[in-house]
């Protein structure tokens, strides 16, 4: 087995393929922020406790701080910069604005990424279920009730489409 302290990771981020030389210790979160300058994904606790770094890895939500960039080699990654299409906000982003679902906004990219995935997973059937399946995203401003309303509204919107 080839063991290396530095390697080149190839991954597709928001539709664009990147080849990134990294130290083996680099996390996916640091690759996105420091190497690709995609700073929408936030570094909160860097221990997998706050969810601010939530991104989609091959379509599933994960904590970007708990994954080595090397382990994401060959993967498809979507970040907050990749959810709006053709200059139009994603319905979840619009719902967060409509429901005033943030104050400082630091956790918002992670909340939105988590909510987009949660609706796709089918875990937005009730407020109780939304609260449970959004619990990995902390909001220190405590906008939780507005966040739950926004996710519920976006889920209804998604169903109507």
């Amino acid at each position: 087995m080839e063991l290396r302290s530095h390697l080149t990771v190839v991954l597709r981020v928001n539709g664009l393929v990147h080849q990134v030389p990294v130290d083996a210790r680099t996390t996916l979160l640091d690759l996105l922020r420091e190497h690709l300058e995609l700073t929408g994904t936030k570094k909160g606790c860097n221990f997998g406790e706050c969810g601010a770094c939530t991104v989609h890895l091959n379509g599933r939500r994960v904590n970007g701080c708990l994954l080595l960039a090397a382990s994401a080699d060959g993967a498809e990654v979507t970040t907050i910069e990749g959810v709006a299409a053709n200059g139009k906000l994603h319905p979840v982003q619009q719902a967060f604005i409509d429901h005033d679902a943030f104050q400082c906004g630091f956790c918002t990219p992670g909340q939105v990424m988590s909510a987009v995935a949660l609706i796709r997973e089918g875990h937005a059937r009730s407020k109780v279920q939304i609260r449970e399946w959004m619990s990995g995203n902390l909001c220190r401003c405590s906008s939780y009730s507005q966040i739950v309303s926004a996710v519920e509204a976006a889920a209804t919107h998604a169903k109507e489409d």
Partner: protein
Amino acid sequence: MDSFVYGRAAEIGEALADGIATNTVFLAGGTELLNWLRLGIAKPARVIDLMQLKGLADIVRLPGGGLRIGTLARLNDVALNDDVVRDYPVLSEAILKSASAQLRNLATIGGNPLQKTRCGYFRAEETLPCNKRKPGSGCSALNGINDKHAIFGWSEACVATQPSDPATALAVLDAIYVTAHRDGGRRIKAVDLHTLPGDTPHIENTLRHGELIVGVELAAAARHSAYLKLRERESYEYAIVSAAVALDLEGDRISRTRIALGSVAHKPWRLAQAERLLVGISASDSAVIRKALDASFGDAKPLMHNAYKITLAKNAAERAIRLAARASS
């Protein structure tokens, strides 16, 4: 984080051959290992990534009943698997009450039981006396803040608990951890995976260096089973106490009981005495159930701040028995 070299195992033989080298660790979901690296709890020279290994994430039925879950199956995939939901509700519930949706998309069923204690002294960013972190340095929790710590099986050297919810469910199901090693694999009973702290709390399980859990096997279905987790907030929090129960019922009568408590000891804690006393009892006879549970707590020993966990654990077990009796799909 100290520097290390990283490699991806293309097949299991390669992982086992290279995993035997000193100062080498296996990487699966990474949800624990990355934090150990950051805190300096682990300082490996070599990290072997297992996630490219083929065929180790499958969940398949065993001939003659039972289920085999590949070690790399992600926790959410196990919890939401139709066979697991129907036949082993205690495992599905335990997993869904673990961590968060994002973490469960990374964490694996083979890696989760190998997580380390949440003891704040052990995980401190500044190094504090802790026999797990530095053998011989003492135990800060023994006479410190120990309200969340062990009530069973602890030693003067360590009062930490094993927090894994899935491991507690697997202990109650009498699951088997199937392992592989360069010198030969084993079948380890779930109750025998973790060790008690004794004088060597830095040793947490019976795996040899370079030994890899490759799968988890479950025996016959346990439809009357349930998991109750008590914690300070309702979601995304570790247990203060948890209770896993699996019942075999004939009508209302219990023909077999299995009870395991989580977060009360250095390993999932089976209540063997209560399990024996409850055979032949009606599942709704709460007075007899209570008495049987009391008998199993004879060797419980509270620390300065956690005597409440004894009451809480008994109540949790009693409630989990009721939930298990009602469960079935």
